[in-house]
């Protein structure tokens, strides 16, 4: 049904998106917590930086990543020398680009949900002997679960669709960074590639719809489980 190239693009897309989301989740929850629960100097700046990918052209962001994480970029050299990781021309680079682009969606959803958690429950847990980190893990995070789930799926879908930052930073390498959108773009560059492009577009649409429906279903289930509705 699907051609080997389509399967390659699809599985690469899923791999990139899953890694991007999985790796950004802990940081996303931490940043959401900082923004929802803490007052500190530079909070507005952090808030702005987190939201930057929403307003910046993806290509510009890809370029920033290239400057920072490229072979000669300060962070790129560090990663290469210490961990032996190259991001450019690698699916890891595609995952990083996708993660950065999707990060604001993740943080936003988690933050909104966390702000809605009744802080009086947290003080109640404290009076029962729970230290702050335990309160966070046993009360705050479980009650934020619907927001975490929404954030995960929104950012997952965003990762699947990521194009500009990926192609600028990680380039368009078949089997390595050529995700569905990049494969679609490539198909359109070839004369007579419209049929292939249409198929890839339909696959993207199907994937997005499945993810959205799944997210709504799961969010409802989770809300029910934690007794919020």
């Amino acid at each position, binding site marked *: 049904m699907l051609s080997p190239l389509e399967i390659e693009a699809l599985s690469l897309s899923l791999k990139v998106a899953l890694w991007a989301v999985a790796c950004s989740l802990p940081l996303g929850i931490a940043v959401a917590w900082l923004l929802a629960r803490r007052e500190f100097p530079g909070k507005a700046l952090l808030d702005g930086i987190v939201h930057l990918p929403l307003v910046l052209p993806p290509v510009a962001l890809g370029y920033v990543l290239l400057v920072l994480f490229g072979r000669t970029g300060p962070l790129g050299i560090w990663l290469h020398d210490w961990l032996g990781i190259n991001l450019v021309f690698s699916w890891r680079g595609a995952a990083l680009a996708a993660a950065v682009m999707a990060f604001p969606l993740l943080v936003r959803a988690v933050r909104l949900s966390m702000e809605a958690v009744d802080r009086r429950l947290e003080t109640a*847990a404290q*009076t*029962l*002997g729970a230290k702050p980190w335990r309160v966070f893990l046993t009360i705050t995070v479980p*009650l934020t679960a619907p927001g975490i789930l929404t954030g995960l799926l929104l950012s997952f879908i965003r990762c699947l669709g990521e194009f500009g930052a990926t192609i600028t930073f990680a380039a368009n390498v078949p089997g390595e960074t050529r995700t569905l959108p990049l494969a679609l773009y490539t198909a359109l560059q070839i004369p007579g590639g419209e049929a292939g492009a249409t198929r890839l577009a339909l696959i993207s649409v199907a994937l997005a719809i499945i993810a959205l429906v799944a997210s709504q279903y799961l969010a409802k289930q989770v809300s029910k489980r934690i*007794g919020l509705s």
Partner: protein
Amino acid sequence: MMLDVDLQATLGDFKIKAAFQADAGITALFGPSGAGKTSLVNMLAGLQRPSRGRIVVREHVLFDSGEGIDLPPEQRRLGYVFQESRLFPHLSVADNLSYGYALVPKGVALVDYDAVVDLLALQSLLTRRPGTLSGGERQRVAIGRAILAAPRLLLMDEPLANLDAPRRAEILPFIENLRREFDISIVYVSHNMDEIVRLADQLIVMADGTIAAQGPVDKITARLDLRHLTGRWDAGAVLSTTVAEQDDADKLTRLSFPGGDLWLPQLGLAIGSPLRIRVHARDVSLALTPPEQVSVLNVFAGEVIEVGADDGPQVDVLINIGSPQQSQLWARITKRSQRELNIVPGRKVHAMIKAMAVDRGDMG
């Protein structure tokens, strides 16, 4: 000494300056809303910070501004039952109960889990979620959860305020049993005098952020100078009695107290059990001569100590009854009677209490 507090705090425009001691047992913190009761309890629990002072619970210093001690709430080990129960909605009742139970530090004796479940009748609720419980059930779970954390002292901030009268009556006995079974000391915040009379041993009256009075419940409720705080409309005296005799034929019970004996409709209590009752001022009438051929069972010879000043048609009269040991009663009479009978301090009177006037709700 169970609790020794001396602290000051400024919360916006509101200042709190409170110093008091409390012995083991139930200490009621009473006062009108806005008197600073909840803030005071929050400061004990470590949820609000006093600007200076000292808090000592059972020889443990929890806060001392002079020595820079300020334990976080989780290290104070004070149980806290909030007005709105604050059960964790994502956990079952059983998991709510064991939340603090699992966090009791090593070396601290655990509270008997099954005994708490039994006492608060929680067995049938264990698998349920807080969202499916009634208000009364929630408060029972919240009380159990706090007790199971093996607190040094239990703080209860108007735990019954959100419940209707029948639910309240349902929970009060649980709180009474709690103290009996687990030997736990409680600071009980309330603005309901009936609850306090029933539960508390000591009473601390707060007004405008300061302690207006503190002492045994019966002494404080008898003080005329505190009447504007302890309540005018449900004024009454508290008598600490013991069950002395059961008259099964007439279905009456005799209670004895320092000032005499009181006959009441029969109570299902063993002889010798202590019982505190509240005699409302409106249920006490006065006569100058020993009344004869009246239906009232309880007549006490006494002497007027004080006559309250009042603008209304009635006055409250404080009377000493009994000798050699004495108790005090309040009587609410009309101003006209007061004038015609010449009720002034020093006057010998006879106070009458209808047996039927004291109902179960006034007893503790």
